[in-house]
């Protein structure tokens, strides 16, 4: 309802990105505009035909063949218009398709090169928005708005030129209402501009009130306060109505007046009176008033469309800008002197890392993972353990020090080589909407069904997959609905088949349903055998056999060693172990298990 004023807020970014997107298509867009201009001019011909007809008939003794020629031209012009308008739309749609395909390809190509750490939920949402809303906004601007504007401008200009040739004085006087319109329109824009912030605020408030109310109503109901939340929401709705009504009413008054000034009825009266005066004075023949009635009324029609076009154009500019923001994300630097790892020893050398350049998440972390051993990283939340694990597969690059595989800095290893070395199984299981067969052989597309089944068996999931209606050909999310634990086992099978010598496990059993936890554990045992493993685990009991435990706190290594050694040292790890044991006593230790007693002691740490 706020119209152009609302849009103006988004327009600040300049036209650079939109111009860049459209530049290669300029010739075809110009062609389409030319076609559309021809169609617009043709659309005036039937009106002119009536005038010609009138001149022929009013004079008496009409020339039959000329009358029919005029009628024939009118019909022909309609056909020409149809043809050219259709052609123009075909051209712009083709241009739009090319732009869409090009943008999508560029976007995917680019996304394949940005740091993995960039793909947070937030940024994935931005990708989605760029693809859905922004490409759609561009579609409208390219495929429709350009032509609509061309038509809206060409038709009145052609009409005006024609009218000037009939009688230039009357032609000018037809436009007499325009200055008045412009005055009211400017006043309206000014008022709207003054209140833009207020309007934006009112719309923002009601939108967040709606979202909050709808999202939160279930929670609020469970606490018996539906009425209160409801009152707050109703209050927000009333506020919106009052603010919006108060602010917009004067703007709307001006708008109603300004559009009334150029309404067809007013134009009709103006032209009819002027025509009668001119004819009365003998300045024009009465019949010459006709083209002004026929065409003059349409002169002001594009004024309404213009605001509409501006609005679309502004959205397209904003859309192009946000598409470019995605495309402007800096990609991972390609290695300057590519190197190939020699062996699979993993070394973290004096590693420092910061997400924002201010807070050090990791600071001087040094650790070596010998080939074929399990290294566990433990520490309280916020100690940097997940971040450390993410540096190895290059979700992010270190801000100081280096991470090496087989003696080579991971930044020097070409991406395809790196991922042949490093595999990972994350908390968040990622199965593609593809067949289970293709999901498992993602890393080795050439693998046979037998090979895939072998790893699935090792991952304790073969029986479940075989039992699906279409077996391994079932598509995830369509006819294969797997539980969290089952999906995790599929991802373990995938990692088994990819067979990377180095493996990162980030809390791989976290979201498993308890029923399938044992099966996942068996699958993991199968997976880690013989590999160099870096594991992040909350359940300390699962890592007591690790070859090395690295204890992080505040981004620094505070202890390292084997479980027994760390327990004996009675340091930080020992504390964590005791806290863990009191919260999660050994499953078979029944007597100490009664945690849920009234007024528990609470001195867990």
């Amino acid at each position: 309802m706020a119209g152009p004023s609302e849009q103006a807020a988004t327009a600040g970014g300049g036209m650079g990105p939109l111009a860049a997107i459209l530049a290669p298509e300029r010739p075809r867009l110009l062609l389409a505009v030319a076609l559309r201009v021809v169609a617009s001019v043709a659309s005036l011909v039937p009106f002119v035909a009536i005038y010609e007809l009138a001149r022929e008939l009013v004079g008496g003794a009409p020339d039959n063949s000329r009358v029919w020629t005029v009628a024939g031209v009118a019909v022909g012009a309609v056909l020409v218009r149809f043809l050219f308008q259709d052609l123009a739309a075909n051209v712009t749609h083709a241009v739009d398709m090319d732009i869409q395909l090009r943008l999508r390809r560029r976007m995917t190509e680019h996304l394949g090169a940005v740091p993995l750490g960039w793909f947070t939920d937030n940024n994935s949402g931005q990708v989605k928005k760029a693809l859905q809303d922004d490409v759609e906004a561009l579609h409208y601007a390219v495929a429709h708005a350009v032509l609509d504007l061309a038509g809206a401008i060409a038709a009145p200009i052609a009409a005006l030129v024609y009218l000037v040739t009939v009688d230039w004085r009357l032609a000018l006087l037809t436009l007499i209402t325009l200055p008045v319109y412009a005055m009211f329109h400017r006043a309206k824009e000014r008022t709207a501009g003054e209140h833009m912030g207020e309007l934006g605020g009112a719309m923002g408030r009601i939108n967040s009130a709606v979202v909050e109310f709808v999202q939160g109503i279930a929670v609020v109901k469970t606490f018996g306060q539906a009425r209160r939340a409801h009152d707050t929401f109703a209050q927000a709705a009333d506020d919106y109505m009052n603010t919006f009504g108060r602010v917009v009413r004067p703007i709307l008054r001006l708008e109603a007046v300004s559009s009334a000034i150029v309404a067809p009825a007013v134009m009709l009266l103006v032209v009819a009176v002027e025509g009668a005066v001119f004819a009365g004075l003998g300045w024009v023949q009465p019949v010459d008033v006709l083209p002004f009635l026929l065409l003059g009324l349409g002169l002001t029609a594009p004024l309404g469309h213009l605001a509409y076009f501006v609005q679309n154009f502004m959205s397209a500019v904003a859309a192009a800008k946000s598409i470019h923001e995605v495309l402007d994300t800096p990609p991972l630097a390609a290695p300057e002197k590519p190197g190939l790892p020699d062996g699979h020893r993993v070394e973290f050398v004096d590693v420092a890392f910061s997400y924002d350049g201010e807070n050090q998440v990791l600071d001087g972390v040094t650790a070596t993972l010998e080939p074929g051993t399990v290294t566990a990283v433990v520490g309280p939340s916020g100690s940097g353990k997940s971040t450390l694990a993410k540096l190895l597969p290059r979700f992010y690059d270190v801000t100081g020090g280096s991470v090496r595989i087989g003696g080579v800095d991971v930044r020097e290893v070409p991406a395809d080589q790196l991922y042949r070395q490093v595999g990972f199984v994350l908390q968040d299981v990622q199965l593609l909407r593809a067949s289970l067969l293709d999901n498992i052989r993602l890393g080795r597309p050439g693998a046979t069904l037998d090979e895939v089944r072998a790893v699935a068996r090792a991952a304790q999931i073969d029986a479940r997959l075989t039992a699906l209606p279409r077996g391994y050909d079932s598509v995830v999310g369509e006819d294969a609905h797997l539980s969290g634990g089952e999906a995790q086992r599929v991802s373990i099978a995938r990692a088994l088949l990819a067979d990377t010598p180095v493996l990162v496990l980030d809390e791989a059993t976290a979201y498993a349903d308890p029923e399938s936890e044992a099966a996942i554990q068996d699958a993991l045992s199968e997976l880690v055998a013989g590999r160099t493993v870096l594991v992040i685990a909350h359940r300390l009991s699962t890592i007591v056999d690790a070859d090395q435990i690295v204890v992080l706190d505040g981004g620094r290594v505070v202890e390292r060693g084997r479980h027994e050694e760390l327990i004996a040292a009675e340091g930080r790890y020992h504390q964590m172990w005791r806290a863990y044991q009191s919260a999660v006593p050994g499953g078979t230790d029944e007597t100490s298990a009664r945690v849920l007693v009234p007024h528990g002691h609470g001195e867990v740490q």
Partner: protein
Amino acid sequence: MIRQLLRVVGDDYRAPIHRFLTSVVCYAVLQGVTFVLLVPVLRPLLRGDVAGAWPWLGALAVATAATVVAYYVQSLQGFRVGLEAANQLYHRIGDHLATLPLGWFSGGRVGRMAKLASSGVREITGLFAHQLQPLLSGIVTPLTVVLAMFLFDWRLATAMLVAAPVLYLVHRWSVGMVARADQAMDEAVAEANDRIVEFARFQPTLRAFGRVGADHAALEEAMRTQDRVARRYARRMAPGKAVFTVAVQLAVAVAVVFGADLALGGAVDVAELIALLVLVVRFAEPIVEVGELGSVLRSTRASLERMDEVLSTPPLPEPAQPLQPKGSDIELADVRFSYEGAAGRPVLDGVSFRVPAGTMTALVGPSGSGKTTVTRLIARFWDVDSGSVRVGGVDVRELGSESLVAQLAMVFQDVYLFDATIAENIRVGRPAATDDEVREAARLAGVDEIVHRLPQGWDTRVGEGGAALSGGERQRVSLARAILKDAPIVLLDEATAALDPQNEAAVQQALGRMADRTMLVIAHRLQTVVAADQIVVLDSRGRVAEVGTHDELLARDGQYAAFWRERSRAGTWRLRGDRSPSPVGGGSVTPVA
């Protein structure tokens, strides 16, 4: 559509809408009359009788003035009605959502509802403010003109009247064609976009398995398909979009030809004919605008339909005279329940058990056995198909939802936090609580420990949906709410995800504080199960397999004993590498820093 609009906006708002529609029709008729007055103006003028035109010009001026006033009035009215209708809709949505069963608010539905309540309401407002007027006047004005033409020449008027249904059919055909093409394109676009979003979200996995950039076949395929489909339909659709405009113009051209024929035959007065032709040609235009409104209306209509559907969802029945619960025990008696629209076997099939006041019952069973459904039926997310759920000896359907939720504190896995401070989020549990009580509840649930780590402490806003906190931290806030609420019955769905030791300890401690309540726990931790006064084991068909204490059930050696053995094995699992090479770091502990 108008009828649906009236139903959605509500009966008590009928009158203003009717008034607005009447104004629009008045405006459209006046505009038509103004146009028609052109004929008596032109008739003398074309004959060269300028003086004879002046009285009619006067009439034209009066009609024009009336039209402008009517335009102004309906325009402001449309704005006011739109705004009031939006307000009316917000209130109706608010009222109605407050009465819907909790079970209605599933994840996807809440998201769609939020969209409907924001952009859907805006669309309906826009209907009043921008769309109804051109739509109605685009039909009423030409109709007025055509009817008035009978006063002058019945042949031309009849021709126009015949053209109307033809134009309508052409319009229907073109809208249908465009809609079909749009739908096919939308589907292809949705598929391509889904693939790209998948590509972005799963980038770590894709890259780890060597699918870098354009190497991802499914994505390339989706993009190519989308491009192909879009091109095919764009070609098909372009004529569909132009055809209505052209049909209108063709009708005009036919009128010219027809008029020429009449005039040459000397059957009509030339001046009158010309005046009528001008009329015909001018009125083509508003009809074209009606055609262009079609696509906008389609999306508004879809919003209206969804809104209608939501507003006609039956509310949760409330008892005429709510009873008060006597005590805080829970009893399920032969409960059967299946989800709406889910064919096949019921989720719960004859479940009976009792949770005595002040004791703890653990619910265990495989996923899909209906554990969550049991807790939700107690909280009356839905009503049972048969059997009954009693709280304090009274059927929950007789309690009334307010007094039922007053008995319950729920700690479920999906915790929604408002975009407000942590303190405000905890206070949701009991808005009347003092600051000290809120702090105390926070301390008991270990939330104070989270607060110390946050940049602005207690005043940190936690973001919509609680995005700024981890899952374990959110559950602690939810526990604090439950502690603050201090209800006699606690329904708890233990987190399946492993919490880190700090979170784990905090949660356990908080639960310990509530152990004198009646508790029903969906238990994932062995120690919770062992600690229960009673264990209810559900089987995969939604029936109670066993009930008893831990020792009794182990002795029975049934489903529970098997579950216990499997879980115990999982509890002692250790990750072990290949230890054939000599162990690393065999030296002493090396403290750093």
